[in-house]
């Protein structure tokens, strides 16, 4: 009856929970779905190479050689900002270790007092006062922490992100505290690049048509048509997005807060983070300190993996092995109790075995509760992510954030109330949650999409 444990060194990124993918041995951190990011890369690189191939030789000779040089510099800056945004840690908050989670649970129970049996315990909220305004901190059940102000949990990446802005599929990563300025510079420089290429395409076509005629010009440089098309559609979306983010920066707000309407409306509190001065707000967001990553991705840690176990374990332990391998990233507490129990089972008599069986059963129940919750979230998320991808293709400047928005909240309420046959008040809730600043057209679109997504949910 021996269990040989081999201790090997692994990098910490291999054991991080959450749905990120890591490359280059933990140096690069991205979301799981990268398809749209490859499309972004392809569009930018493709359009710029067409520009350098078709327009630049003519313009360099007939106008000025500075034109391709400046275009090259702008292109390199755009690529640098895009890669920086996509590959860096957006400001992910690591999950609470078991002791910290227990400490917080004890504090919550002490604060709530005795809840009579059958009644739902009050929601886990902590009130803090920031600059004389009361801000509510919510408890994150996945990460087991009270989220700092302005942090939010991204359901796509399954992480809490500090100063969460939104999850951008075009960039393939969340946009948060650490990479917001790179994201903003990316959209700004991409707008400039698009305007630049568009302008010089027109100039080139006009100049060549004067010599050769319009149709001949198009025949000689077929790339121009493609470039103009791509630039035209990109212009509206990217310039709009840059304008929107400039507005947000001047008010020191995040996209998440703007969509939820946290600081708008008469009865709501004012933004406690704004300096009430546009220049100061811009300086803080763009020229503030560069925060370090608190996820130590490339640090080394010991991992104990059992090599051979020949133990007379009770039959329930073999059924634990399967869930352990598939959901080892879900809870921090559950896998450690499994390995602990596996080694303890080797020793001991019948009484001890019974105690361990009780432990295993309790851990199983805990795990199945977590799985249940995850399963529901996964199914809904799949449906709603289809809808949101469609939405984001049509309206790239209106990336609706999925986690905790009015959209998801009211969808949940609709599904729950439908199942319990209670009156459906979701439309009223949606109307109250969406800020007045959004146009009624957006409201109609969101309502339509919500109905579509709920219909999808029924079939999934």
């Amino acid at each position, binding site marked *: 009856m021996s269990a040989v444990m081999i201790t090997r060194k692994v990098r910490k990124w291999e054991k991080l929970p959450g749905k990120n993918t890591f490359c280059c041995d933990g140096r690069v951190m991205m979301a799981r779905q990268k398809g749209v990011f490859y499309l972004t890369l392809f569009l930018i690189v493709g359009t710029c190479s067409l520009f350098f191939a078709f327009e630049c030789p003519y313009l360099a000779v007939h106008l000025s050689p500075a034109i391709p040089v400046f275009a090259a510099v702008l292109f390199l800056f755009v690529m640098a900002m895009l890669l920086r945004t996509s590959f860096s840690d957006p400001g992910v*908050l690591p999950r609470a270790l078991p*002791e910290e989670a227990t*400490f917080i649970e004890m504090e919550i129970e002490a604060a709530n007092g005795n809840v009579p049996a059958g009644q739902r315990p009050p929601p886990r909220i902590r009130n803090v006062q920031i600059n004389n305004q009361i*801000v509510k901190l919510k408890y994150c059940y996945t990460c087991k922490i009270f989220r*700092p*102000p302005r942090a939010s949990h991204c359901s796509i990446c399954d992480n809490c992100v500090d100063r969460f802005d939104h999850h951008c599929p075009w960039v393939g990563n969340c946009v948060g505290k650490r990479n917001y300025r790179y994201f903003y510079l990316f959209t700004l420089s991409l707008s400039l690049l698009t305007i630049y290429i568009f302008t010089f395409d027109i100039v080139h076509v006009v100049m060549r048509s004067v010599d050769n005629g319009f149709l001949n010009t198009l025949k000689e440089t077929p790339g121009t048509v493609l470039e103009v098309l791509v630039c035209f559609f990109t212009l509206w979306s990217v310039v709009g997005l840059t304008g929107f983010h400039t507005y947000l920066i001047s008010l020191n707000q995040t996209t998440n807060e703007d969509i939820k309407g946290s600081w708008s409306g008469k009865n709501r509190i004012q933004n*406690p983070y704004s300096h009430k001065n546009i220049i100061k707000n811009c300086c803080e967001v763009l020229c503030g*300190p560069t925060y370090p990553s608190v996820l130590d991705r490339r640090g080394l840690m010991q991992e104990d993996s059992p090599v051979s176990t020949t133990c007379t374990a009770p039959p329930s332990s073999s059924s634990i092995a399967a869930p352990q391998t598939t959901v080892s990233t879900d809870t921090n507490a559950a896998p450690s109790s499994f390995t602990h129990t596996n080694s303890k089972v080797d020793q001991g008599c019948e009484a001890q075995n019974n105690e361990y069986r009780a432990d295993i059963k309790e851990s199983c129940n805990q795990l199945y509760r977590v799985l249940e919750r995850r399963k529901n979230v996964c199914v809904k998320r799949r449906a709603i992510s289809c809808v949101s991808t469609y939405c984001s293709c049509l309206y790239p400047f209106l990336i609706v954030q999925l986690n905790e928005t009015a959209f998801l909240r009211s969808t949940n309420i609709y599904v729950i109330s439908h199942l319990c046959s209670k009156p459906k008040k979701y439309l009223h809730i949606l109307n109250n949650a969406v800020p007045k600043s959004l146009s009624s057209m957006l409201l109609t679109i969101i309502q339509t999409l919500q109905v579509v997504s709920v219909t999808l949910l029924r079939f999934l």
Partner: protein
Amino acid sequence: MQGLVPTATDGNMATEFHNLQELRHSASLANKVFIQRDYSEGTTCKFQTKFPSELESRIERTLFEDTVKTLNNYYAEAEKIGGQSYLEGCLACATAYLIFLCMETRYEKVLKKIAKYIQEQNEKIYAPRGLLITDPIERGMRVIEISIYEDRGSSGSSSGSSSVSGSTAR
């Protein structure tokens, strides 16, 4: 970290410095206290200076408050938005942030100072009292974790530690 740190400080020969490795092997973890963040001034990194009740018998209030206040000052210095941070930001932007491949940011420099300070505090003040401070950056800058150890050794060592707490005056 092997070997004991020399004991003579301010001529006080009764002071014993525990080697931190020794502490981990001979003591057992009894409890952990988590000092939460203080958000009253916004999202800048600041920790509460409220003295937790679990530490009442282990360490003096003033020593603890000094440690937390010094840490808060370090973090405020790192996150200060002023001339130097603007210069750093503009220079980095002009080089498309490639300069950070060779240069260390100001925040990283301050973090190194903080790590050194915490190490020093642990060796001089906290380890002799059976406490250990964990650098907040290892906990996501959310909490300062203070581990409380019960000495499994003989009663002589526990009386030694009580004489230490009485005699060290900083």
